[in-house]
């Protein structure tokens, strides 16, 4: 059956139209505003001054670096916990059903609530400090600290169940026959994991990593409450530029840079999965 070009376009219209209207158009408007030609704020005519300010001001440059830091580190921490957890959850163990329900709890907790939980538990004089004090123990500084440990804890706590779900799904889709066959041929459990399961689950793992990374890039509430007073992530400077200085040109330039970082990671993801696709003869896609 052949479909006419017009019919095809009509069929595509709802999906493509939605993307253009709610993603493409706002992004295009933001880009135009960042170049001084937008409808938000003062129309200055074409200018690169907002980008120049963003990259020439050391405070904003530190903001970009810090945004990357609080995206990469919580993602790696989440991966380090989620991967073994997802593997463990493939096996049967007593209480698995209850655990499967409980570990997903952070998924329904908003980021700002997660930040308050970490603050109440780990701030100076918080609950953990009070518990440990009679034992003569004390916590390192976890809130407003230079390494942003509190931020990392809160963001990773939110991301681990999400990542585990995606990786668990990828692992579950691998035929068990493969692992069993490898085992009968003498491969250890660890070898099966490294040589068979991990490569086959890699598309799911990279997707999870990508989504967590992108989600953390724009984190606002968590670093605002738990982070050091300097540096601040670009999301906080963006809010300040837009809402306190009414400088939408600078704010949208920051938004475009954050989006560009996310897009760059997306491209790396496609590059990675494309490489895997070729390496495995198209099986993993």
């Amino acid at each position: 059956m052949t479909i006419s070009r017009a019919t095809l376009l009509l069929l595509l219209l709802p999906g493509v139209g939605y993307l253009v209207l709610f993603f493409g158009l706002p992004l295009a408007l933001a880009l135009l505003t960042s170049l001084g030609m937008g409808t938000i704020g003062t129309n200055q005519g074409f200018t690169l001054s907002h980008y120049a300010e963003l990259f020439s001001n050391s405070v904003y440059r530190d903001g970009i670096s810090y945004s990357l830091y609080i995206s990469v580190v919580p993602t790696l921490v989440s991966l380090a916990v989620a991967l073994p957890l997802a593997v463990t959850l493939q096996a049967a163990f007593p209480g698995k059903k209850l655990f499967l329900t409980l570990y997903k709890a952070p998924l329904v907790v908003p980021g700002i609530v997660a930040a308050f939980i970490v603050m109440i538990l780990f701030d100076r004089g918080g609950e953990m400090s009070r518990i440990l004090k009679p034992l003569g123990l004390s916590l390192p500084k976890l809130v407003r600290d230079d390494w942003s440990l509190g931020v990392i804890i809160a963001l990773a706590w939110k991301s681990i169940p999400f990542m585990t779900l995606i990786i668990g799904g990828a692992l579950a889709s691998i035929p068990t026959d493969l692992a069993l066959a490898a085992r009968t041929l003498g491969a250890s459990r660890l070898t099966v994991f490294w040589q068979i399961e991990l490569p086959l689950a890699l598309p799911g793992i990279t997707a999870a990593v990508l989504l967590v990374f992108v989600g953390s890039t724009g984190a606002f509430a968590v670093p605002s409450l738990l982070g050091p007073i300097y540096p601040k992530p670009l999301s906080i400077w963006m809010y300040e530029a837009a809402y306190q200085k009414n400088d939408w040109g600078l704010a949208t330039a920051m938004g475009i840079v954050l989006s560009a970082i996310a897009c760059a990671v997306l491209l790396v993801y496609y590059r990675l999965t494309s490489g895997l696709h070729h390496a495995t003869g198209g099986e993993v896609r």
Partner: protein
Amino acid sequence: MTLRALLLAASLICAANAPAFAFDPVGAPDFNIKTSIDLKALTTATFYDVLTPLAVKDGTVVFYDFGESEKDLFAEIIHRFEAKYPGVTIDYHQVDGDQAVQQLIAAKQAGQPSPVDLFWMPNGSVRVANEAGVIANLPLNTMLPSAPDLNQNAATVSRGYVHNGVVAPFHRNQTAIAFDTRVVPEGTEPKSFPELLAYAKANPMKVAITDPTKGGSGSGFLETAILAMATKDCQARLYDYTLTEDEAKAWAASPCLDPVLAYFKELKPVVEFTNGNSDTLNLFTNGEINVGTVWEDMVFDFIGRGLIPTTIKARLMTEGEVGDGDGAMIPSGAVHLAGALLFMDYLMSDEIQLYKLSVNGSRSARTKLDIAKALGPDVVSRLVPQGQYDTLARPRIVGTVTNAAAARFVTEILQAK
């Protein structure tokens, strides 16, 4: 009849007629608000007679409250207002102040009427809102019959920005130094900048300074330090409201700020910089700090709600400390102007100004208010001592200087390892 008697009679006649002058728009030949009310003919003498029937006819006034903890206060104020003016109801909304300002700007740019008739707004957003033309150019500093005695700086300046009276100073607050009397008995607290530094060095991490770029008590502390440490020549420009942004940046880049930054460099390793006003107070609650920078009204409110111990007291530095406030304005696109003006007038009245002081520790810009009526023992214990407030409270310096100074603070103090 003696000359003295004649002069007295003339003075009395002038005084009786003084409030009855008509009002002029602020900064323009015409009012920027569309209304059927003849604003140029309105006087304080005709204020209620003209506006009350129109407000009743409109029926509703949409009111935005940007505050985080004034919901109960406004519930009571609105209850009293609606009882005083039957037929006029207040449609109350608690909003995020910065976002509401953007909403008003967007409505104006779209040619739409304002979604709100009266907005109690954050002082830091007055410049943005006024420069975007969303504030009605009504001379609120002179046109409200209930508030003839406003402190003129408070009534015409918001966070160092001169608005010339288009924002009514509904709420005044004061930055202060708080201390926990369980560990710092009254009388032994640090009272000046040198004493604070000495205390911080002797008690590392027991003093919290709010981030000057994030919380008003921090930027107020920075301004107070500037007032205390800048030389006389440098201080000459701190209340020069004609200062341009470039001039403010030049001032902050000059040696004028050096003694302040030198002070902060010494302070930095021994204090905790916090992420906001509440963050500082939370450390008091956790018993982790003994001294911190605060807003007086927040201390009052937090003690009242049991969020910090009653042992926390606030005082002003002997060098003087800056205070400020958040005002209410009527947007240029407001559609219920009569009711908005009546409600504004009520907010500034003796009754409400005293009530909010007793309930929220919110100071007043009214200079002839008999505040002794509101100062019961519980109120007094939660406020800065009145004698200190009367003698040591200072207005905030020019806002552009503060911003430029805060920017230099970030690069030279916070960025430095």
